[in-house]
């Protein structure tokens, strides 16, 4: 039996109470039982029993009517913050209403969170960009001036000062190398200057320089242009995937590819390393997912122990987030 779904909770309870009272009254009227003006004990027993039956029936009926609400509360408590699922919109009246509005609320919260993440990440990228730029343009240029100036001074200095000046010049050079390395890690200038394929190629070279694994790269020619935001996401996901391959996977060979698939551009980073079970890789994967969500890209990570890991990012072309 199902209560009509538009009935408010208040009226449901009233209805149940009313029905129980009416049934009780009808039994009293139509059964042979009667109550004298001066009730005898047997009559009191019958009335007592009747009352108990009525209260129990009432309680059971109300519990039945409220059961969906109880289930809803249990489900609400069980909602996972990180992977919210939709509540089943079942039950009647108020319960269905609550489930519907909670679902709506969760949808809005998820959307809000996505927007918040997007703001945070783009603020972070902008800040990195600014710092990298300043390192390059200010600190880097000043150190270049120092380096060239020292060389000039060295050529005119008395011989006794030359070794000291040369040592200082080497420090300036080391400083310049540091600045460049830090700036590059903060923000790959090559992405803006030369485009995504070049930036990924540079990433692959960098990876080969700093790990034992070799990199095979294949970038399809004539890929459709992505928004600047999407390019940063592809770059960062590739960077993270390569970092994981180098740091945890113990891979021998890594394949980095960028292809066109229908209306999407697909990045794939495949290694032949250790692989892992479950998503126990720490914050790296979560970061990749957050970034992917920014440009409505799909991220899939397939990994099995001893069979390597494949990170695949499918970015729809022409989506502004």
């Amino acid at each position, binding site marked *: 039996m199902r209560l009509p779904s538009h009935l408010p909770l208040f009226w449901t309870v009233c209805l149940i109470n009313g029905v129980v009272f009416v049934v009780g009254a009808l039994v009293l009227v139509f059964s042979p039982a009667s109550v004298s003006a001066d009730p005898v004990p047997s009559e009191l027993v019958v009335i007592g029993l009747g009352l108990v039956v009525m209260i129990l029936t009432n309680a059971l009926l109300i519990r039945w009517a409220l059961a969906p609400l109880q289930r809803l509360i249990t489900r609400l408590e069980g909602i996972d913050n990180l992977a919210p699922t939709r509540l089943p919109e079942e039950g009647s009246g108020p319960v269905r209403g609550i489930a519907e509005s909670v679902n709506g609320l969760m949808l809005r919260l998820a959307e809000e969170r996505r927007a918040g993440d997007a703001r945070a990440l783009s603020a972070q990228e902008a800040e990195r960009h600014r710092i990298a730029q300043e390192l*390059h343009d200010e600190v*880097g*240029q*000043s150190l*270049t*001036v120092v*380096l*060239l*100036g*020292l*060389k*000039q001074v060295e*050529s005119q200095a008395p011989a006794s000062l030359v070794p000291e000046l040369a040592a200082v*010049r080497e420090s300036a*050079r080391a400083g*310049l*190398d540091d600045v*460049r390395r830090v700036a*590059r890690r903060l923000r790959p*200038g*090559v992405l803006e*200057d*030369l*485009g995504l*394929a*070049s*930036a990924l*190629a*540079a990433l692959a*070279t960098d990876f*080969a*320089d700093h790990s034992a694994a*070799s990199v095979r*790269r*294949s*970038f399809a*020619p004539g890929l459709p242009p992505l928004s600047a935001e999407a390019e940063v996401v592809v770059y960062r996901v590739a960077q993270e995937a390569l970092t994981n391959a180098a740091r945890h996977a113990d891979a021998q060979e890594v394949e980095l590819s960028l292809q066109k698939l229908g209306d999407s551009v697909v990045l794939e980073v495949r290694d032949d390393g250790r692989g892992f079970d479950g998503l126990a890789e720490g914050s790296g994967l979560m970061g990749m997912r957050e970034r992917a969500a920014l440009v409505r890209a799909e991220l899939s990570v397939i990994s099995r122990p001893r069979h390597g890991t494949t990170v695949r990012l499918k970015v729809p072309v022409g989506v502004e987030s």
Partner: protein
Amino acid sequence: MIRILLADDHTLVRRGVRLILEQEADLSVVAEAADGAEAVQRVRDTQVDLVVLDIAMPRMTGLQAAAEIAQRRDPPKILMLSMHDNEQYFFGALKAGASGYVLKSVADEDLVGACRSAMRGETFLYPGAESTLVRDYLDRLRRGERVPTSVLTAREDQVIKLIAEGRSSREIARDLHIALKTVEGHRANILGKLGMRDRVELTRYAIRAGLIEP
């Protein structure tokens, strides 16, 4: 006398570079520019043999300016000066028509040499790019891919592995107990045998190897 145009958006860097170049009797900076567009303009109105361009400049980047200057009839030689230790910029510079790429962090040592090799019509190979190319070549060889095979001598084989590890000529000379000049000779021979002798060959190889986009 080699007449040089110097383009960099930082006045002090320009001054430093000019001082380094003018220590040499045969090099003379005859014009300066503060951005790419101005450099292109100076090349139009001044007779120069060599243009030294900073890669990152406002208005028009060094790469854009290089591409435009290289389009001229009888263009001057072009050298790029860069903060970026990244072979993609190096290949980008070659594609744009430059014949050399000098990192700012070694400009005090390499710039004069690079100017001279550019004027001799040689490519000044930026060391990072050389080891990238060579390492890629060795990877392909190991995977059994078809590569331009030519027989390297046993010594060249030793040298190519050290280049792939990113060692400098000086380090290689020390490790193999041979003279620096001999190492330089081996390097040149190896690159010649692999078909990476000049700008055009290098660019072609890098495109074929998928190191850069065509």
